[in-house]
């Protein structure tokens, strides 16, 4: 179970790290090596994004990675294949991140079964609010996959409560309004995080804009998990796979 795994890991750490990669970016071999470096750097959880041609919730860095991956021939089959290898090879929890069309076109029942077979613990479907999600959520429940939902600073308390009823594993808290990959004022977060905490007992993962040791320090003690997304891709693009481990190790 994802939640139990998070709580177990959290006993030895002040804060856990979750990273994000786009499968097939820049190619599948590099994806695998990236995951290896991340695991060596002590990363606790990882989001594996199955690329989509219209990633409306992602900022420019991840958008670009999605498009490059697709242009390089990334298919859902190849993403599932690599993921099966990764989950067997590395002893951390993996989640899928993607957009609903990937699941819908394949058939939600088949996709849920394939996710389970690939060995992930759950999935974030960025454009699937719970109101639209029932068929996929039911299929995921049958496969014991946790649906990861998102809170944002604009989510009203009543809505957070309704999301929390369906969420499992952890809740992903977007640190600010806007897409992934730009700046956040971490000091202004306290009121928002209190509302998140009030809405759910699940572990909280804070993402969008985490890029330096100070950012991680600023949210340690406030949330269980720091999410590093776009910044790892930037580091990869600037310094190659080798630069990723030192970067992640510098964060906490």
């Amino acid at each position, binding site marked *: 179970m994802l939640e139990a795994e998070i709580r177990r890991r959290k006993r030895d750490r002040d804060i856990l790290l979750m990273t994000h990669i786009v499968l097939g970016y820049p190619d599948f071999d590099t994806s695998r090596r990236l995951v290896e470096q991340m695991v060596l750097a002590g990363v606790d959880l990882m989001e594996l994004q199955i690329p989509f041609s219209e990633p409306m*919730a992602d900022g420019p860095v991840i958008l670009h990675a999605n498009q490059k991956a697709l242009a390089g021939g990334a298919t859902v089959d190849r993403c599932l294949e690599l993921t099966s290898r990764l989950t067997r090879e590395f002893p951390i929890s993996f989640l899928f991140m993607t957009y609903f069309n*990937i699941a*819908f076109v394949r058939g939600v029942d088949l996709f849920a079964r394939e996710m389970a077979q690939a060995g992930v613990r759950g999935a974030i479907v960025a454009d*699937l609010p719970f109101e639209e999600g029932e068929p996929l959520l039911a299929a995921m429940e049958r496969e014991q996959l946790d649906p990861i939902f998102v*809170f*944002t600073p*604009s989510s009203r308390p009543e809505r957070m409560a309704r999301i929390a009823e369906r969420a499992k594993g952890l809740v992903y808290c977007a640190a600010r309004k806007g*897409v992934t990959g730009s700046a956040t004022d971490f000091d202004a977060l306290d009121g928002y995080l209190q509302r998140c905490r009030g809405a759910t007992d699940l572990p909280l993962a804070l993402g969008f804009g985490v890029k330096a040791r100070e950012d991680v320090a600023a949210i340690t003690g406030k949330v269980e998990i720091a999410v590093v997304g776009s910044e790892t891709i930037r580091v990869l693009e600037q310094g190659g796979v080798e630069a990723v481990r030192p970067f992640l190790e510098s964060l906490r």
Partner: protein
Amino acid sequence: MLERGYYGQFGGAFLPEALVATFEELEAAFRQAKADPAFWQEYVDLMSSYSCRPTPVTYAENLTRHFGGARIYIKREDLNHTGAHKANNVMGQGLLVKRMGKRRVIAETGAGQHGVATATMAAKFGFECTIYMGQVDVARQRPNVFWMERLGATVVSVREGSRTLKDAINEAFRDWVSTMDTTHYVLGTACGPHPFPTMVTYFQSIVGREARQQIVKAAGKLPDRVYACVGGGSNAMGIFSGFLDDTEVGLVGVEAGGRGLQSGQHAARLCSEDASIGVAQGYKTYFLQDRDGQMNETHSVAAGLDYVGVSPILADLAERRRVRFEAATDREVIDALALTVRKEGIIPALESSHAFAQAFKEAPHLPKDAVILINQSGRGDKDIFTIADAFEDPSWKEFIIAKAEAYRAGS
């Protein structure tokens, strides 16, 4: 709580959580405005004083004689300010923006018509304005970019994806997610997450309301068939909504057949085997996508029809067989345009010419007492660069070359 906006199995609101609150606010504002009779009146008054509403219905006597079948009438949306039906939706949303107290508008544009219309509205109402446009479209639609910038808009060239309309939409959503407190996104067509399909249709329904009265008066009866081109579907929804309850009126949506339905280079979602049901850009409809659900590239001579998705309302009307969908190829469209210009002295946009092309295929086979109505969604004369290219006009090319040489010599 957001109402989900389904039409049969199509539509919905597949939104990232970050956009949910914005859509709730928009939905509430639209619902209140719609319930207020003064709002529709304000809209009609604005469109009759700032644009040319009601636009006329013209009897195409020469085309009728030419084909020797049904009597052909044309609804003249080309006579709107800024040259197309796009103005209806944009001015309506502009009034809604005033009610919501926002100060900035953003929009996507493909051919540039919707961008020009939005920039015009922003200039009139004093809003800040940013237009997202694919880099490919910026390059091929310079005259529209010129006017958008003159009108005070910032035009952002989108370099992601296929660098066309769908990518401009994604980019506009990205802007909106972080600016929703001050900004309204003026979506240009009857697509996207709820409430856009119903809201855009509501504003465009002014076309159908007028057309129904006008055609009955001019032809003495309801039309047997109504033709409209279908990109996203807003002009079609506009005119069709006047006749949906008249089951004896055949409604025909005409999609971009591009280089032919067998060529893979078209934008036909509702009348080709290449499209399938999917969810993207916040709504469920037929998309031109591959087996993994990745969107394909599309092609049409008319940039305004060159789009992967289609209004969920039209997808439902297609499924219920209330609207029949056909495709016209680039070649058929150019021929229809040339004939209309020559016979009637009317210049339809390349988009609208799709409706003409299909009507011309069917008119000769209808009896002389039959009546057909074509929605001329926009005018073509302001797209002279595109149309001259479509006609491969040699003296136009010479003119442009000479002009370029003169610029070069002068610089």
